[in-house]
C-alpha cells in the first residue's frame, strides 16, 4: 500500500511538472491518468520493493553523487585513451568480479553502475559473478579494488 501511494504521488508530481497547466479540467485529466496507470500497474503486480524501491531512497542520496563523481573521473580516463595515438592506448580485457549484494536488485544496481562508468561494461551475470569487459588495465584495476561493490552493498542497506 505504501508503494502504491508513493507511486501515485510520484506519477502525479511528474505529470504536474511536465504539463505546467493548473486549470481544474487539466488537473482532473492528470488525476484520471494517474489512477488509471496505478490500477494497471497494480493488476500487473509489479509494484513491490523491486519495481519501486522505496527503501533505497535515503541512501541513494549519498550513493548517486558518489557514482556521478566516479563517472566524471572515468570519462576523463577513457577520453585520454581515445586521444592517445597508437594501438597501445587500450588494453581490452575480460574479468570476473564477485558481487556481495544480498538481493537481485542490489546486484542489478551494481552491474548497472559498472556499465554506467565508462571503461567497464557488464556483459553477463552468472551465479552472482559479473563478467566485465574493461577497456584498459587501469579501469580493470580500479574496479578490482571493490570500492563500488562495497558502496552498492551499503546502498542496499543490509550490512
Amino acid at each position, binding site marked *: 500500500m505504501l508503494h502504491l501511494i508513493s507511486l501515485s504521488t510520484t506519477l502525479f508530481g511528474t505529470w504536474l511538472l511536465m504539463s505546467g497547466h493548473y486549470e481544474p479540467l487539466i488537473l482532473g485529466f492528470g488525476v484520471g491518468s494517474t489512477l488509471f496507470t496505478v490500477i494497471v500497474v497494480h493488476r500487473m503486480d509489479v509494484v513491490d520493493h523491486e519495481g519501486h524501491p522505496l527503501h533505497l531512497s535515503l541512501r541513494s542520496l549519498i550513493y548517486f553523487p558518489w557514482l556521478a563523481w566516479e563517472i566524471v573521473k572515468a570519462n576523463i580516463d577513457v577520453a585520454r585513451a581515445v586521444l592517445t595515438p597508437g594501438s597501445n592506448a587500450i588494453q*581490452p580485457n575480460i574479468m570476473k568480479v564477485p558481487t556481495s549484494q544480498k538481493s537481485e536488485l542490489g546486484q542489478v544496481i551494481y552491474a548497472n553502475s559498472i556499465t554506467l562508468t565508462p571503461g*567497464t561494461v557488464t556483459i553477463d551475470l552468472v551465479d552472482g559473478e559479473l563478467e566485465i569487459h574493461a577497456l584498459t588495465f587501469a579501469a580493470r584495476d580500479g574496479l578490482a579494488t571493490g570500492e563500488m561493490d562495497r558502496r552498492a552493498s551499503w546502498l542496499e542497506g543490509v550490512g
Partner: protein
Amino acid sequence: MDISVVIDIASWALIIAGSVFLVIGGIGALRFPDFFTRQHAAGITDTGGAGFLIAGLLLQGGLSLVSVKLIFILLFFFFTSPTATHALAQAALSSGLKPKLHKTSGDQGDGEDASSKI
C-alpha cells in the same frame, strides 16, 4: 562580479566540456578496433557528454519547468543507457561475436589469438 556572469561562465564551461566529450566519444566509436571497445566510446557520449551538456543547459534554464524537463531527460539517460548497452553486449556475445583481447605477454598484436581464451 555579478552572479549572473558567474553562472554564464560556468554554463559555458560545462557546455564546452560536454561538446568535447561528445566529439571524443564519436572519434572513439570510429577508431576503436571492435564492437566491445566501441561500447566504451558510446558510454562516454551517453554519460559524460550528455551529463555535462545538460548540466550546462540547466544553469541557463534556471529554476523553471525547463530545468525539470532537462533533469528528466538526464535521469532517463542514466537509467536506459546501461540497459541498452548491456542488452547489446549480451546479444553480441550470445550471437558468437568474440571480443578482441589485449595480449598480456607484452607482445602487441591484433589479439586474434587471445580472443580464443574466453
